[in-house]
């Protein structure tokens, strides 16, 4: 049996992440928004590495940039770095228990935040507000939920 999720599931999750990125939050909390797109890309890199590699991560990052209206290429850069790290540790990550997996994802998201801040500081745009460092923590907490939900969805779609 071929383990292959339906082709529309990836774009659908990307779209969902885009909407989640744009949803209005109170201005004080907006920088702490979890990096939904990073979580979704992480899921697909771990689960279907033959479909989502560096190239796909780059393209998804560009789309996110256009949507959010940040610097063009910033998210692309972050997604590529994230995908690369995940590819390296994929074999181990896949068989970690869920809490350990989330911890690893938290570390990767923290790195993502550092890359973003580095880009901003290098261009003289100023560092992020302190609240922004909450974002990886929230992302880490959201990972098990997202992972289980997407896995369940994929399984159900495969059976149907």
């Amino acid at each position, binding site marked *: 049996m071929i383990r292959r999720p339906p082709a529309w599931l990836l774009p659908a999750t990307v779209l969902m992440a885009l909407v989640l990125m744009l949803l209005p939050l109170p201005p004080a909390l907006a920088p702490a928004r979890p990096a939904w797109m990073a979580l979704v890309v992480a899921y697909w890199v771990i689960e279907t*590495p033959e479909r989502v590699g*560096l190239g796909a991560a780059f393209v998804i990052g560009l789309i996110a940039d256009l949507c959010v*209206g940040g610097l063009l290429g910033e998210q692309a850069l972050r997604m590529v770095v994230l995908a690369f790290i995940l590819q390296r540790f994929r074999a181990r990550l896949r068989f970690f228990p869920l809490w350990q997996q989330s911890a690893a994802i938290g570390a990767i998201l923290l790195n993502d935040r550092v890359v973003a801040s580095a880009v901003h500081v290098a261009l003289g745009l100023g560092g992020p507000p302190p609240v922004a460092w909450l974002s990886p923590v929230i992302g880490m907490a959201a990972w098990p939920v997202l992972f289980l939900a997407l896995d369940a969805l994929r399984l159900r779609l495969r059976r149907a």
Partner: protein
Amino acid sequence: MPPYAGPLPPARTGEVVETLRLLAYLVVALVLVVLDHRGGWLRQVRTQAEALMQPVRLVAGLPGRMVERLADDAGTLGQLTDENARLRRELLVNQARMARMQTVAADNLRLRALLDAAQRDRLDVQLAPILDVDLDPTRQRLVLAAGSGDGVRVGQTVLDAGGLVGQVIDAGTLQSTVLLLTDASHAVPVTVARSGVRLVAYGDGRNDALRLPTVPTSSDVRVGDALVTSGLGGRFAAGFAVGTITALAPDDSRAFLVGSVRPAAQFDRGREVLLLRSGAPAPRAPGAAAANVGTPPPATVDASAQPALPPPAAAAQAETPSATPPLARPPAPPPAGGPR
């Protein structure tokens, strides 16, 4: 547990190839970032590409609208009656104020005629709803649910009831983007309404403060002074409220004062903003008149370009020609002159 189905562990050469690919993508991304930061041709391309993302933003804006509608529907009779009474009172006060302003405007017009200084004193604005979506939090921007199809153009001045909000930097077909005064890359030429001293107010990247980095120590500027746009530079018309100075302190060199300004506009997401359509309704600040006499009225839009505007979409906006939107906020004079 499903069997391991990924590719075989990569060989050494595979790793090298993958690293090279990573480097290639990183270089491309960095080049994009730097080019975009510098502005130029890439920004044009991006504007086009962002137009493709409008539907996504539209979808993301839906929850906000639904909440708004729910809040409207869920308002109890008591609340609505209270609100109605309050609005009625405000209307009354504003109308009284406006009536007084009209005589002042008429006087002004007569005096101007005596001076032979022809000036268009009509405030032509259009109402544009705000699309409630969060963009990149490191930049201070706003998305409007009205685009070039509704007559929005790049460079238009954006106002709210309090005062100046910012300017349109990008007009798609359905949506447009507004750069707020408070964005770190934004600067607006202002005058102190009381003394006519001219300054430049810079955004600070926070939504509750502007910065006046170089106020000469000898200049007549005090805490509590109101700032209005000076009209210099030609981008903003003169006389719109920008904010009030909340603090002044000497900078490190002791040669200048550094001021902090509380913006007059409410950036906490009202539901609508006003887009200034015509170029130059240029009411002057009372004290600034003497200092600014030599300044030509900024002409951002050619008068002949007006009729070429597409007709406004019915639901999205309400045109109020020669009307006085609630801009009057002392001590800045209302930017609305009466009809000629």
